């Protein structure tokens, strides 16, 4: 409630600032070129409304069409299509805003200076976070810290980027929740991107065994589990790394599925294959009670 009151107060201040800046300037203007605001006619108003509606429809169509098309085409082209969405939406916005500015403002050098001053005051008071998000979104487009179709972790949230708006991005988590995250987190938060515009993303699968287990056998089974899984991208490296703990040995299989979207079903498939082979060889699992003595505090459950 307090923040809403504060926001209303800010908007009021903004309007006063706008009036104080624009109206006297307009009143002093002698010629049409000196006025900031151009003449507003009925035709211009209708044109503006039509332009806004067309832009809205265009953005809606782009989102729907690219969303549909990217799921219909082969995987190889899916990300290419998805990544084009922010650029296409940006183009529509730029064209529309340019048209509206041209229709309603006299963009001379002096007017532009006056207008930017006004906007700076307005944005500084009321839309700071909004503009910060927009600028972060544009920066991210070129930095490519995340793109539509990427699998990213921002803060506590992990999922696939499915939407890239003016102010925010949308993530769909493995639990099928859609999370909206403002772009301006880019300034302060670290962003972990699993696939960075590629189809494949590394999947790490951990298994744990007692110290007495033959490591050659475990490593061989893990390699074979990865080679035999139909999801594995065999063109990319497959590696098994080990780590010693007081309670046992941790083996981590690092490999890539052909499609990052398959990461959970892929990990399940790897574990199913490996566990069948482990059971066949009757390998001993670690002793959980020793985890209590581990100074690092990590247990098999935590990895």
């Amino acid at each position, binding site marked *: 409630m307090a923040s809403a009151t504060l926001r209303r107060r800010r908007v009021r201040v903004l309007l006063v600032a706008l009036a104080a800046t624009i109206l006297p300037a307009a009143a002093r203007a002698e010629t049409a070129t000196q006025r900031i605001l151009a003449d507003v006619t009925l035709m211009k108003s209708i044109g503006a409304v039509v332009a806004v509606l067309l832009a809205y429809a265009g953005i809606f169509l782009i989102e729907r069409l690219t969303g549909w098309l990217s799921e219909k085409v*082969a*995987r*190889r*082209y899916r990300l*290419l299509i998805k990544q084009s969405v922010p650029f296409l939406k940006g183009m529509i916005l730029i064209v529309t805003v340019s048209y509206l500015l041209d229709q309603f403002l006299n963009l001379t050098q002096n007017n532009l200076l006056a207008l930017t001053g006004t906007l700076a005051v307005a944005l500084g008071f009321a839309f700071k976070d909004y503009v910060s998000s927009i600028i972060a979104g544009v920066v991210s487009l070129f930095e490519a810290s995340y793109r539509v179709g990427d699998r990213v972790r921002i803060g506590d949230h992990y999922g696939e980027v499915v939407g890239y708006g003016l102010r925010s991005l949308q993530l769909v988590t493995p639990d099928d929740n859609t999370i909206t995250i403002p772009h301006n987190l880019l300034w302060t938060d670290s962003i972990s991107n699993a696939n960075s515009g590629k*189809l*494949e993303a590394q999947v790490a699968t951990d298994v744990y065994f007692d110290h007495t287990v033959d490591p050659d056998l475990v490593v061989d*089974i893990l390699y*074979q*589990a990865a*080679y*035999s*899984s*139909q*999801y594995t*991208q*065999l*063109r990319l490296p497959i590696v098994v790394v080990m780590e010693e703990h007081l309670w046992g040995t941790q083996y981590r299989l690092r490999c890539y599925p*052909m*499609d990052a979207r*398959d990461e959970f079903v892929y990990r399940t*498939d790897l574990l*199913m*294959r*490996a566990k*069948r*082979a482990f059971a066949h060889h009757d390998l001993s699992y670690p002793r959980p009670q020793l985890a209590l003595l581990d100074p690092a505090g990590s247990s098999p459950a935590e990895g």
Partner: protein
Amino acid sequence: MAVPLLHSLHAGLDSWFTRKTSQLADDPLEPLPRERALALGRRIEALDGPAPLQAFVREALGEAIEAWRADPEAANVLVVLGRPVEPITPVIEAVLAEREGPSSGFHTLLPCHRRPADPENTPRMLTAALEGRGASGAAEGEASLLSLPNLDQCFLRCIDGWSGIERLRRVILERRDSFWLLGCSSWAWKFLDHVSQISSYFPAARFLPSLEGSELREWLAPVAEGLELKPETAAVPGGPETAEDAAADRWSQLAELAAGSSRIAAELWLGSLRLAPADDEGGLRQVKPVLPDLPSLTDEDRYLLHSLLIHSTMRRDHLAFGLGLPSHRLQPRIHWLLGEGVIEETAGELAVRPSHYPCLVKELANNNFFTWEA
């Protein structure tokens, strides 16, 4: 990435346009009745392998054996690769049959053409065959030339599924006094290369050559001659001048569409045969061959088809075992693919229909699967 997309789009549009044009042209010709097509298919099955393929294997084998006999350090193995829809075994067997005699001494190590019923026995099958001949390879007085024409039937994509192949690799490298002739599908070879770097040990694998239109015509001649095929239409301005030129064009188109594969060409050729109406002289006509459309595939279908192409032919339970899925989860997709004609089942063995192979390769490559061709 945009260039392959455009190429793919162009090829797709071209193929679609050809099909739609023939559909819209109110074609008076009718497809062959199913019984007649099946009878022709059986006659093609009974044909010997194309002579140019046999000649290629014969020549390559002769050269390799000569080199091995002349230089003990030369490779003691010849690997012949072919597409998974193209059986290599008959070609190799025909070549070996020609060499039969007391001096040739070729012995087929594993005459089995199919994997054993229990999928877990697949790797043991080859290991047992190798161990049956003793750790020292050929027994005294036995032939020192060994063939294994169907390597793709000796492994399964599962844990421990290619241990027999690794054992074979070790035996071949250790026993340099024996010469080995191996036949394998190119997809299986590529898979084995990924999982056990087999081509590092045997780099000189030879791929069966692509057949020209005239060679395909010659191969299918025993079947085509009895059909009294008539030219499809009269000569068009700017087109081939004579009926013979038009027929040569058709065979060249067929060879191009089939990428020189005899089995793909045979299916496309059967599909291009049309029955003329009785009031228009009757008889059979050969029209322009076209590749059949692939139905819209799901990810699950692609994994299934990719596995089938790696193993060439598979029983249903082997397929499920390799994919790590319970058989009942695969059955609906197998039935759907059978119904759509993408795969076929012969004597309990599933395989990709040869005519769908060219489109399927593109489909899988575009979906980030490894293929031999792309």
